[in-house]
C-alpha cells in the first residue's frame, strides 16, 4: 500500500491576522507556522495508523511550498511519514497547487491520497476534489471515519443533519475531517529518525493559476457588547426580540 498525504503550512491558530503591501499580502511578521491541523491530526495520523496495521504500507508526504516549509515537513516525518517531496513553489491558487500534487501523484502511483478538509488560512476546501478530477479518481470529502478492508475503503462523512457511509474501491482521494483519528505528538525516536528521512525537493511542472487574490481585508469590529443584568433576563429576551429581531 502506498499512501500520499498532502501537507500544507498554515499560521498557528492564534496568529495575529494582518496584511501588508496595500492589503495584498499576509503579514508573516512574528507568525508561527504549523502543519494545517486537518492534515496533521486527521489525515497524517490516520495514514500512520494504517501503516501500524500493515507494515508493508509506505507513507509519502507532499508539500507545495518554499524552503520555509521544511520545518513542518520534518515534523510530519517525525510523526511517522517515510519520505517527503516538496515542490518548490510559492503559489496559493488551488488549481496550481493541485496540478503540482497531481504530477507527484502520477509518478508515485498511490493507492490512497489523503488531504485535510481545508486549510485554515485560505479555506479553499478544494484541492482534494481538483486533484481527484485531474487523476480521474473518485473523491470522498469530509471523511470522519476511514476503514480499509483489502482494496475497499469504507468511509463515513458528515452531511447536513447526519452522517453518510459509503464504500469505494482504491485508488481514491479522501479529505479528512475531525473524527478520522486522534492527534498525536512526535516522540524523541521519531524526531531523531526524521533527520535522516529523505526530503526531496522538486521544481514545479508547468501549470496555470486560475485565480488571484486582489486584496485582503479585516471584518469591521463589533460595536461592543450590551450587558444585561443577570436578574433581568426578560430584558435580554426583549432586546433579542425587539432590537436585534432574531427571536
Amino acid at each position, binding site marked *: 500500500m502506498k499512501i500520499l498525504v498532502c501537507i500544507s503550512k498554515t*499560521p498557528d*491558530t492564534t496568529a495575529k*491576522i494582518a496584511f501588508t503591501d496595500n492589503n495584498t499580502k499576509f503579514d508573516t511578521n512574528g507568525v508561527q507556522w504549523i502543519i494545517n*491541523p*486537518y492534515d496533521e491530526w486527521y489525515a497524517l495520523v490516520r495514514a500512520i495508523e494504517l501503516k501500524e496495521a500493515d507494515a508493508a504500507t509506505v507513507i509519502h508526504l507532499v508539500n507545495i511550498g518554499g524552503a520555509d516549509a521544511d520545518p513542518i515537513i520534518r515534523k510530519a516525518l517525525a510523526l511517522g511519514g517515510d519520505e517527503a517531496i516538496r515542490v518548490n513553489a510559492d503559489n496559493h491558487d*488551488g*488549481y496550481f497547487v*493541485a496540478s503540482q500534487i497531481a504530477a507527484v501523484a502520477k509518478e508515485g502511483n498511490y493507492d490512497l491520497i489523503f488531504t485535510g478538509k481545508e486549510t*485554515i*488560512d*485560505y*479555506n479553499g*476546501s*478544494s484541492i*482534494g*476534489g*481538483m486533484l*481527484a*478530477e485531474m487523476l480521474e479518481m*473518485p*473523491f*470522498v*470529502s*469530509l471523511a*470522519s471515519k476511514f476503514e480499509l478492508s483489502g482494496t475497499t475503503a*469504507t468511509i463515513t*462523512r*458528515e*452531511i*447536513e*443533519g*447526519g452522517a*453518510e*457511509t*459509503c*464504500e*469505494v474501491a482504491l485508488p481514491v482521494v479522501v479529505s479528512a475531517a*475531525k473524527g478520522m483519528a486522534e492527534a498525536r505528538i512526535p516522540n524523541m525516536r521519531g524526531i531523531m529518525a526524521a533527520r535522516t528521512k529523505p526530503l526531496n525537493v522538486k521544481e514545479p511542472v508547468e501549470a496555470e493559476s*486560475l*485565480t488571484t*487574490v*486582489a*486584496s*485582503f*481585508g479585516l471584518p469591521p469590529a*463589533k*460595536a461592543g*457588547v*450590551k*450587558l*444585561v443584568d*443577570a436578574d433581568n*433576563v*426578560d430584558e*435580554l*429576551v426583549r432586546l*433579542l426580540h425587539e432590537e*436585534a429581531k*432574531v*427571536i
Partner: protein
Amino acid sequence: MSVLIFIDAAEGKIKKASLEAITYGAHIAQQLGVSAEGVVLGQITDDLATLGKYGVQKIHRVADEKLNNLDAQVYAKVIADVATATGATVLVCSNNVDGKSIAPRLSVRLKAGLVAGAVALPDTANGFTVKKNVFSGKAFANISVSTDIKIVSLSPNAYKIEAGEGTAEVVDFSTTVEAPKVKVTNVEKASGEVPLTEAEIVVSGGRGLKGPENWGMIEELAKLLHAATACSRPVADAGWRPHNEHVGQTGIAIAPNLYIAIGISGAIQHLAGVNRSKTIVVINKDEDAPFFKAADYGIVGDAFEVVPKMIESIKKMKGGA
C-alpha cells in the same frame, strides 16, 4: 450566455442552502443581463417549477436514479455537460458538503477558476472579483477569476433567500450518466431536528456546563427557539456531546442569525468558527471572559440560573405574542 445554478437535494427534497444559491445566482444573472438557469440531478419529489419564485427561469433536470446519491465524479461530468450545452459562463452552487466535492472537480473539468465560500455578489464592473472569508472568518479576501467560465460556491447563510413571483420552465436534459464508483451504504440522521449548518439560531455550550448531564436546559432552550445545538471543542473531545456539534477553527464553521454561547470562554479558535454569526449572545459567569469582546449582548452570571430564566421568559413572550 447564462448563469447555471446547481440545485442540490437530499432524499428528493431541495436543500435550504440551494435556495440561497438560486437567489444569489439569479442576482448575478441580473447583474450580467443574462438568464438564470438551474440544474437538478436525481429523482426529486419537490415541485421544481415553483423554484422560479427565487429567480431561476429554466431548470434542466437529469432524473436518473444513478444520481440519487452523490458521487462527485459522476455529478461533475453531468453538470459540466449541461453547462457546455447551455453556454453557461458562471456556475453557482452552495459551499455545503455537496458543493465542496463537486465545485473543485468542475473547476478542473471546465478549466474554470473557483471561488469557494463567497459571501457577497461578484464585482463585475472590471473583471470578476468575489469576496470570500479567509483565515477561518478572521479576514476576507477579494479573489479575481481570470478564466472565461467562473465558478462561485456560496457560503451557507451568507446570502438572504428572496422569494417573489414566477415559475421555472422545467426541461429534461439527456446525457450519459456513468455508474457511481462511490456506493452509499447507510445514511444516519443526527438526533437534533435542525441541521447545524442550516440553523438560523444555534445554542452552544462549553466546559462551563460542568458535565453532559446538564445539557437538558441547552436542549430545551434550543427546542423552544427551533435552534440547533453546538459545543466547544473540549466538550466534544470529552465525549459530553457528539463530534458533529463541535464548532470552531477545527470543527464546523457556522454563520447563524443568532448564536447563544453558554459557559464558553471564547478562545480565538472557537471564535474562528462562529464570528460570522449576525448576533452573538454570551452567558458567562466571568466578566473577563474574552467572548464578551466578540458579543453583541451578554449576561455576566451563572448559566444554571440564567438559562432556566431565559427559557421561562421566552415561553412567556411566545405565549403572549
